[in-house]
């Protein structure tokens, strides 16, 4: 796995921590939703960065009250064609105004990168293979967007209104 | 007596093709190499799958044929001989 962020391969400072493993003293742990719910008070009291991995069957509301404390939320694509996390991402960004890192994990394909970005993802765990340039190019395939998604890209309708 | 042949669609144009004895792929079912025993059929399928991996053909599989070399299932006869009737001037149909 490599981490793709801001159009480049990045060092991943985060470590996934199993539910029964002790939390590392420092560093940035990602815990499961189950562990977060179990140890919520203790985790919140910790110093430093915290991340939660939200299963795609869980409602985003399950972590809504904690988004102020979370610096990373990881969403899951168990298979590329299981698109639930697209909706979760938009709810996190647009409804709950979550501003931390939103990471796509699982089967993340280059031909989905633009969709993910538009839904609010800003970090991607990708299988090694395609060159970084190919991933970067995937973001430039289109310059026209028909839906407002909160990603700031102007929609076709907005351009038409501005153009008169 | 029945036998088996390997069929697939050619990647570049989707044409129905049949694996020949020389390892190439032909457009007519009559060209297909007919295999009588299971072990040889597995070998044929494995070779066909290598051609799929090499981006020559798509989704190869084995088809049962009768003693005359014609596919036994109706679906495979339509693949081999074209639509069941000449719906248009240019539609290939050559059902025996």
């Amino acid at each position, binding site marked *: 796995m490599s981490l793709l962020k801001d159009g480049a391969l990045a060092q991943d400072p985060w470590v996934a921590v199993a539910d029964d493993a002790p939390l590392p003293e420092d560093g940035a742990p990602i815990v499961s939703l189950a562990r977060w719910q179990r140890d919520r008070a203790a985790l919140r009291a910790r110093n430093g960065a915290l991340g939660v991995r939200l299963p795609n069957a869980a409602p985003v509301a399950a972590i809504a009250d904690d988004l102020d404390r979370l610096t990373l939320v990881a969403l899951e694509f168990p298979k590329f064609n299981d698109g639930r996390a697209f909706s979760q991402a938009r709810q996190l960004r647009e409804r709950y105004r979550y501003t931390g890192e939103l990471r796509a994990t699982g089967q993340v394909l280059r031909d*989905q990168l633009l969709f993910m970005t538009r839904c609010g993802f800003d970090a991607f765990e990708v299988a090694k293979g395609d060159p970084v340039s190919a991933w970067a190019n995937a973001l430039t395939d289109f310059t026209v967007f028909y839906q407002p998604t909160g990603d700031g890209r102007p929609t076709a309708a907005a351009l038409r209104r501005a153009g008169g | 007596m029945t036998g088996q042949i390997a069929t697939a669609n050619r990647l570049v144009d989707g044409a129905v093709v049949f694996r020949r004895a020389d390892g190439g792929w032909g457009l007519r079912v009559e060209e297909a190499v007919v295999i009588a025993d299971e072990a040889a059929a597995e070998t044929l399928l494995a070779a066909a799958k290598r051609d799929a991996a090499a981006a020559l053909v798509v989704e190869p599989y084995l088809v049962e044929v009768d003693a005359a070399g014609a596919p036994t299932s109706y679906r495979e006869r339509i693949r081999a001989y074209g639509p069941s*009737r000449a719906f248009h001037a240019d539609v290939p149909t050559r059902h025996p």
Partner: protein
Amino acid sequence: MYQYDTIDQTFVQQRVAQFRDQVSRRLAGELAEDEFKPLRLLNGLYLQLHAYMLRVAIPYGVLSARQLRALAHVARRYDRGYGHFTTRQNIQFNWIKLAEAPDALADLAAVGIHGIQTSGNTIRNVTTDELAGVAPDEIEDPRPWCELIRQWSTLHPEFSFLPRKFKIAVTGSPHDRAAVRVHDIGLRMHRNPAGEVGFEVLVGGGLGRTPLIGKTIKPFLPKRDLLSYLEAVLRTYNLAGRRDNIYKARIKILVHDIGADAMAERVEAEWAQLRDGALVVADADIARLAAAFAPAPYAPRSPRSEAVEHARLTDAAFGRWLKRNVFAHKVAGYAAVKLSLKPIDGPPGDATADQMDAVADLAERYGFGEIRVSHEQNLVLPDVALDDLPALWRALDALGLATPNIGLVSDIIACPGLDYCGLATARSIPVAQHLTRRFEDIARAHDIGKLHINISGCINACGHHHVGHIGLLGVDKNGAEHYQITLGGRADEHAALGKLLGPAVPYDGVVDAVERIVETYVRLRQDGEIFVDTVKRVGPTPFKEAVYVAA
């Protein structure tokens, strides 16, 4: 009609460029089939029995003459000289070469059409009434709203990997010609007591393995809220629809499992968060679209045409065509004309490249250059002056497009079936051909009256057999083609699912069986009663006896 502006044009060309790159990666062996398949499907390219099949979207069934000529060009240049119009107002080309598919799509993109989202678990081509904008009973023209939905749903980043495919249909008339009750979402425009026009929203209708009639979850949705509400429905479905079983993944199963009330509540909760957001339909946006569909520059004409009256009295063939294929228009002195793609012994819904070119010419000569595609797999010239009808009829007759059988027993809806389709269990087209020959006598067909026969080659129900007055479903019995018969289905505002009559009949017996059913109806009908009403009144027993006892 709506014309692509430079924004749409840029988009569709970028899409072709992206697909061209994907195809070349595939041909070079850089992409394996399992990686490439979802990408080609998202551009409407299937691998069928004989070759690749390209499905091209005709948005809500509206084509310009120029676009129809481009379809003819694709049929001629990249295929075998014909195309097949489907029940979803799309067209399919059956013999496309992968290496040439990007070129074909580029030629189509030049006139603003494409294959995007004609496959895959996406929001599919939105469909509507083929008489939209010209039907006298219409409350409001649904096409601007269809175009709004088309744009909103095109490469929607959140809804491109839904649990299953998703079909939306819209009707602007009380008489439903768009079958909105058997779609994932059906939108029915109507007027509330305050006189405002809005949408009734139905969800969870559909055919296929589990046919269900849609349920109303919003009796009246203000027009400004259309997109936010659709987004709420789609999000609810995307998050909660089943993904563990492909046969239970459509929204109809979700609605069925949790109930329409619970579905309505969930959507309402989601919508509460969205309704005043960025998706509110701006007046300027819908006004721009409405202007694109502004009424054509009709000339003032008499509602009565002497030319028509004369031809009707002097030529019985013209009279029959006038009665069956010509439809009332909201503007006096005009009519909408249906072009039958159901000639006797022809493959239903097919048109040759030459026919398409000729129809494009006729659309310009006898109209304003517009053609519609109906979900019954026929074409429509929507704006014909009454005085032009005799000349148009002669031209269509010469093209083989004037069979006077619209809505009759030989106007058969059929999917491609086993002659083309990789999923099929039995043939559809030859069954339709045999049936049209059996009912070739047009006077007899007119006497039988309105009767829809629908044929599907497998349980996927692309031929909408559940909603045929007579439905035929191809099944396999010990390696031989058989057909299940259902009676009493209908797709209109009285939508109902047909009921299975009895055991499936073999290929060789299906035409006789249908004829016995029709004869039973003729024997039992009461004054003016159409087939499906007789079935409803007398029940299945006499038909069962006719098919299974007499046989």
